[in-house]
C-alpha cells in the first residue's frame, strides 16, 4: 500500500514536473534569444556608429590641435612683422574698430576656422559611416549638422545684439534721450528675437508657428517702442523741433554748426 501510494505520488510528481521543466526551458530559451538578438542589434548599431563617432572626435581633436598650432604661429609671425602697427598706419577704414588687435583677430579666426573645419569633416565622416552602416533610421543626424549652424547663428546674434544695444545706448544718451536704456533694451530684444526665430527656422522646429509667433512678437515690440517714444516723449520731440526751427529762422536756411549740445552759444568746443 505504502509502495503504491509512493509510486502514485512519484508518478504524479514526475508527471506534473515533466511539463514544467519543458516550459521553463522554452521561455528562458526564447527570452535569451530575444535578448541576444536585441543585444546583437544594439551592438551592431553601436559598431556601425562607433567608427563614425570616433572619426568625428578624431577629426575635431586633430583640427583643433592644428588650429592651435596655426594660431600660435600666426600670432608669433604677425607680432614679429609688427602687423598691428602697419595696419594702424595704413588703416583702410576708421569706422571698423574691433575690440581685439588685428593680430589677435587673425589668430583667433584661424583657430576657430580650423575647429569649424574639423566639425564639418567630422560630421561628414559620421554621415558616411552611417550611410554605409546600419539600415536603422537616425533622425538626429540632420539636427546634428544643423546644430552647428544654429550655434553660429546664436553666437553672431548675441554679438550683434550687444553691439547694437551699446551703440543705441551711447547715441541716445549723447542725444540726451531719457529713455536711452529702454531704447537700447528694445533693440537688443529685437535682434535676439530675430536670432531665435532664425535658429528655430534653421533647425526646422515649429514650422509656421515660429514664423507666426515671430511676426507677432516682432511687430509687438516695434509697436511698443513706437508708442513709448511717440507718446512718452511727444513734448520733448515737439520742443526739439521748435527750437531747431527757431534757430534756422534766426540764422538762415541751415543752422551754423556751433559744436554745442544745448549749451549756451558762448561756448565753442572747437
Amino acid at each position, binding site marked *: 500500500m505504502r509502495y503504491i501510494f509512493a509510486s502514485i505520488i512519484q508518478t504524479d510528481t514526475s508527471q506534473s514536473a515533466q511539463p514544467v521543466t519543458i516550459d521553463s526551458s522554452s521561455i528562458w530559451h526564447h527570452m535569451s534569444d530575444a535578448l541576444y538578438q536585441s543585444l546583437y542589434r544594439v551592438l551592431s548599431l553601436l559598431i556601425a556608429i562607433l567608427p563614425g563617432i570616433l572619426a568625428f572626435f578624431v577629426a575635431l581633436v586633430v583640427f583643433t590641435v592644428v588650429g592651435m598650432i596655426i594660431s600660435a604661429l600666426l600670432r608669433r609671425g604677425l607680432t614679429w612683422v609688427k602687423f598691428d602697427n602697419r595696419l594702424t598706419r595704413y588703416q583702410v577704414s576708421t569706422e571698423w*574698430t574691433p575690440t*581685439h588687435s588685428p593680430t589677435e583677430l587673425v589668430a583667433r579666426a584661424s583657430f576657430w576656422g580650423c575647429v569649424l573645419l574639423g566639425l564639418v569633416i567630422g560630421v561628414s565622416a559620421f554621415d558616411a559611416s552611417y550611410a554605409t552602416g546600419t539600415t536603422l533610421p537616425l533622425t538626429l543626424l540632420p539636427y546634428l549638422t544643423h546644430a552647428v549652424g544654429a550655434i553660429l547663428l546664436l553666437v553672431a546674434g548675441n554679438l550683434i545684439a550687444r553691439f547694437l544695444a*551699446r*551703440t543705441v545706448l551711447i547715441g541716445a*544718451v549723447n542725444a540726451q534721450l*531719457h529713455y536711452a536704456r529702454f531704447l537700447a533694451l528694445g533693440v537688443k530684444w529685437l535682434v535676439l528675437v530675430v536670432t531665435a526665430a532664425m535658429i528655430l527656422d534653421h533647425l526646422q522646429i515649429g514650422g509656421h508657428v515660429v514664423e507666426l509667433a515671430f511676426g507677432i512678437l516682432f511687430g509687438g515690440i516695434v509697436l511698443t517702442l513706437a508708442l513709448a517714444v511717440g507718446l512718452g516723449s511727444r513734448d520733448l520731440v515737439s520742443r526739439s523741433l521748435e527750437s531747431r526751427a527757431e534757430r534756422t529762422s534766426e540764422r538762415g536756411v541751415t543752422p551754423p554748426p556751433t559744436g554745442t549740445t544745448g549749451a549756451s552759444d558762448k*561756448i*565753442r568746443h*572747437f
Partner: protein
Amino acid sequence: MMATANSIPDVTPSSAPAAVELLVMVASMPPNQLETLLSRLSETFATDRMLIAVPDAPADTHPTLRIIATPATKASWTLTAADFANSAELARKNDARAILMLGPEAASLTSTSLHDLANAILSSNTDLAIPLYQLPPYAGLVNSAILYPLTRALFAQSVRFPLAIDLGLSVRMAERLAAAANRFVALHQGDAIIWPVDEASTAGYSIHEVEVGPRTLPHPVEFDLNAILALVAGSLFADIDIKAAFWQRARPLTSARTPIPQPPMTEAAADIAPMLDSFRLAYTNLREIWSLVLPPNSLLGLKRLSSTDAAAFRMPDNLWARIVFDFLLAYRLRTINRGHLLGALTPLYLAWVASHINITASGTNSEHHIEAVAAAFEADKPYLVSRWRWPDRFNP
C-alpha cells in the same frame, strides 16, 4: 579745403620770376575775405618772392601777386592730410624756402601775425612756427581739455594750440608732414587730421610758438559734437599709439609757459545746466560701460560729481587727467569698440566743461585753470606709462 594731392597745375609765370622764397597756401574762403587776406599779404611780404596758392583764384585784382589756382576739395575747418601733401608738393616744384599755411577765416589775422609766422621760418632755424591765438574764455575747449594737456604731457611741448589752423613750415617739416599725410591720401582719406607738433617732436625739429593775437575760428562742418570729438580725440589717440616708443621715454618740458593774458570776464558765465543734465543722464545709463574703462577711484569720483549741485560742481584736475589717460589706454587695448569708447567720453568732457565754466566764473583765470589741468596730466604721466607697458597689472 585746399587741393588734392595730384591735381596741382604747373606754374608757368609770364615773365622770368624770382625764386620763390615763401609759398602761401590759402584755404577756401569767401571772396571778400580772400581780398582782405591778399591785400595783407601784399603789404607784408615782397611780392616777387612770394607765391600764393588758392583754391579759387580771384579776378586779376592784385597784378603784383603771383597767384596760382588749386582746385578746391572737401571743405574742412582744420588743416587736413590733403593740404599737407599739396603744400609739400608745391614747395618742391617751386623750390620754396618756407611755407605759410593759412586756414579758413585767416583774414582775421593781422599783417604782423602773418609776418611773424613766416619770419619765424625764414629768419631762423625753426621748422614749425605755430600760432598762439588769443581766444575768448570759452572757445577751443576741446583743445584746452584734451589736446593741449595730452600733447604737453606726452610730447613735452608746451604748444597751446596743437591743432592750429595756421602754420609756418620749413621745407623739411613740410616733407615730414607730407610723408605722414600721403599715407592717408593714398587710402583716399585726404580729410584725415595730421598732428604737426607730434611729428616735429618725434623728428626732433624745432618748434616756435608765435603770438598772433585774436583770430576768428571757423565752425566745424560737422554739426554734431559727438562726431567731431570722436574724430579729433580718436585721431590724437591713434597718433599717440603710433608714437608710443617716443613719448614713453621721460622728457622734461622744453620750456615753462606763461599763461596767455586774458581780459577779465565781463559777461555772465555760460549756462551749464544742459551739460550737467547730459552728464547725470550718462552716469545713470553709461556706468556699466565706464566701469569697463575706468578704475574704481574714478568711478567713485564721478558718483560724487553726479550728486553735486550745479553751483558747487568742480571736477578735480587729477580726476580728469586720469579719465583721459584711462580712455587712451582703453583705446589702445581695445577694451571696448573704439566708436563706443569715444562716444562714452563725450558726457565726461561736458562735465569737465561745466566744471571749467564754474571755476572761471568763480574768479579763477581761465588760462591758469588750463595750465593746472595740463600740470595734472604731467604729474600723472607715470601711471599712463606703467599701464601702457604692463596693462594686466593695473586692470581697473
